[in-house]
């Protein structure tokens, strides 16, 4: 009762104050001054006659938790930065509405289609290695699993991070029922398991381990910003698992038309041009100019793995338990 009363009070308040302000919930690295946020805001504000207001949390998982916490009282009009593994849970909140955006022309590997969430960029998970220490990088997941245990890799924890979950699903896609065995073999190669991507990648660049789980696009950052070819992605013959980032609109938003305009804007060149060199992910549709050279040197996976969000949602707990058992024994 109290919650419902609070919600009405609250939406009334938003409606009053919502004189053409679009509130976008997103993750921190999107709005940081080096991220795409500021440019996106400027580009969209030119056309919409509105003000874009970001609310940023740490990452996609925190974004979903925040929505669950706020429930119907959320101030968001648009939520930008969930990934396909989270969208089943996101839909369960009942907060989202169909996007009404035609996504049929988008080029997203793995054939992702959804009428609620609009994909805006993607990246394939990949093992990034240091060419100064590794001369023969693994050429397949099998190589990684069965390779020299003295060449260590840092991975992320699937209980606390989306890349960690990505690796779990990747191994599952390749090994299926034999995943537990694969993890038990890989275990000796794992230097450590970090809570999130930042910690893992920092250990890697500090030289603690010659390999890390990241994205095929990571080398582009080093080539363009650091002017170095030192860090490269290993192409795996079985194929790579993909992470697709999506945005959706909130059902109760008083600015739904504006929110829809923004979702449409997200798949136009105005938005897609900004993504590659600020969010370091691949665009989902054509950009007005070709991507920088570095992008042509990136690994293009021969095959893309993507599980349905429903399968991920249904099995996540069991698969994490399997991972825990396989990697925690002595």
């Amino acid at each position, binding site marked *: 009762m109290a919650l419902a009363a*609070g919600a009405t009070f609250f939406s009334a308040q938003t409606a009053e104050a919502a004189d053409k302000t679009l509130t976008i919930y997103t993750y921190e690295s999107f709005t940081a001054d080096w991220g795409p946020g500021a440019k996106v805001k400027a580009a969209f504000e030119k056309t919409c006659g509105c003000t874009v207001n970001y609310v940023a949390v740490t990452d996609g998982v925190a974004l979903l*938790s925040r929505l669950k916490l706020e429930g119907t009282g959320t*101030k968001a009009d648009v939520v930008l930065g969930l990934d396909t593994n989270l969208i089943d849970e996101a839909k369960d909140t009942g907060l989202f509405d169909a996007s009404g955006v035609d996504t049929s022309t988008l080029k997203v590997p793995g054939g992702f289609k959804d009428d609620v969430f609009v994909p805006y960029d993607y990246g394939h998970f990949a093992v990034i290695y240091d060419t100064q220490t590794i001369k023969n990088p693994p050429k397949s997941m099998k190589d990684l699993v069965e390779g020299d245990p003295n060449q260590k890799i840092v991975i992320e924890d699937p209980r*606390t991070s989306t890349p960690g979950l990505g690796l779990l699903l990747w191994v599952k896609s390749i090994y299926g029922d034999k995943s537990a065995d694969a993890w038990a073999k890989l275990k000796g190669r794992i230097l450590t398991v970090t*809570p999130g991507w930042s910690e893992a*990648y*920092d250990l890697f660049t500090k030289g603690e381990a010659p390999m890390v789980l990241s994205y095929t696009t990571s080398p582009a950052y080093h080539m363009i910003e650091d002017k170095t070819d030192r860090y490269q992605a290993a192409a795996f013959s079985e194929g790579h698992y993909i992470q697709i980032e999506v945005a959706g609109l909130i059902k109760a938003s008083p600015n739904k038309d504006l929110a829809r305009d923004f979702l449409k804007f997200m798949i136009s060149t105005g938005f897609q041009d900004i993504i590659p060199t600020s969010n370091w992910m691949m665009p989902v549709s054509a950009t007005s100019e070709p991507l920088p050279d570095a992008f042509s040197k990136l690994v293009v996976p021969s095959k893309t793995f993507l599980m349905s969000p429903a399968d991920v949602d249904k099995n996540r707990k069991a698969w994490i338990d399997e991972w825990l058992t396989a990697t925690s024994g002595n």
Partner: protein
Amino acid sequence: MILTAPERRCAISGGTFSLGSIALFVGIAVLVLLSAGIESGGNTSLTDPYLLRILRFTLLQAVLSTLLSIVLAIPVARALARQPRFPGRLWLIRLMAVPMGLPVLIGALGLLGIWGRQGLLNQALSALGLSQPVSIYGLAGILLAHVFFNMPLACRLMLAGLERVPAEYWLVAGGLGMRPISVFRFIEWPILRGLILGIAGLIFMLCATSFTLVLILGGGPAATTLEVAIYQALRFDFDPGRAVMLSLLQIVVTLLVLGAMTLFRAPDDHGLTGGRTLRRIDGQEMAARCVDAALLAGATLFLGMPLASVVVTGLEANLFKLVSQPIFLQAAVTSLAIALAAGLLAVLISFAIIHARSVISADRRKSLGLHGLAIALGASSSLILLVPPIVLATGWFLALRPFGDPSRFAAILIIVINALMALPFVIRVIEPAYTVHVSRTGRLAASLGLHGIARLRMVDWPGLRKPLFTALSFAMALSLGDLGAVALFGSDSLMTLPWLVYSKLGSYRTNDADGYALILGLVCLLLTIAGTAGQGATDDESRRND
């Protein structure tokens, strides 16, 4: 302590009010989460084998970390106490506060700079022709990191105790010609014994709730603590019911351990003395000086090298550019404002609690109720170590949701949570000094008829100013390094320094992150300098009385 009846009532009600506020703040968060958990129909089995395993590991690493920190801190604290004058002593003591204020990830990276696979140690080993790197991942890494973070804390608290040994003791010891071993047995050990259980309890709880360090250095799922399970339940599964159940489990287990420890608590005994602090006259023989020098050099290296590694990597960043960015200024101002508010609040609450306890303990025929109140006051300060900040933050987020956008209250919540986090430290800094101060000045002040504001101004403030400032700097350093509470509420409008470090890391900008980490470490050092100004140096006496 001799007080007038209104003063006594005032002290007790102040303590009760503080206790009530803490209980209310923690209680509301837990209750709201519990009801949200029941609403969502969460079913949590506490007998799950996974849970038992992580519980066992949590306790094992916490007990070992605590033992090591304490055992190593004793000789170092003793050496510092025995050698009150050597160049750089004060700086060593100040340096000991820096690990507290560093976000754990930064501390861990500093440690890896020395002990890691590419660290100084392994580089030296490979230069000697040994190829196999020494690996610090696994239990050894966790213990190393916990000792790095907690041994200095234990050391500082023990040193404070040793420095309060009345001058008369040293006169007698000198007169009797006591050997160092007797000095330790009859003077130092009784003091340390009284402190150790409290310090050990504090460190045990810090290690039991350790999370990032355990995950990074533990090597994998075999090393996981309950805190990870709580974090996961809230953040990834959003299962508030499970999070609260796990927190309750943590509280029960930790309380059992702490309860067992208090059975061995030594009685506090502070003699009435003239209040003179006299420089120690022992420890000046050649052998003792050599031993102490070796000990202190070892401790300095152990502590200083990882910090130096943070400095070296930090200097590779373009510090000037980093500092001149508006986002840095915003983060620095926010962090300092939050830290100052949290620090002041922590000192205020601590003082109210200590004052009330002291008044109650002076009451010879206290009622059962008062007795219970004293115990509750003693326990209240540790509550926060048992209920993780993320549980408090989430609970309050849910509680405030009906009143509008919860992130509007974010700053206030972070301040309160940080203040509570600092409470156990602050109390351990102020309480011993307060007890000694009261035993030295209480009767005299009463006989002179000094009461209320006058006594506060003429007796208490000059006598307690130093520990109060030290406590404030402790609390502020702790708040500066905190990431937990902010992570949930974070929005553009509330950017703190640790969050800036993490957000730089999250976008490949590790150099920038190293630079900001160095700045954060320096701010902590500056705070400690402010907090320890005029402390330690005996020839400082004249300056202190200016």
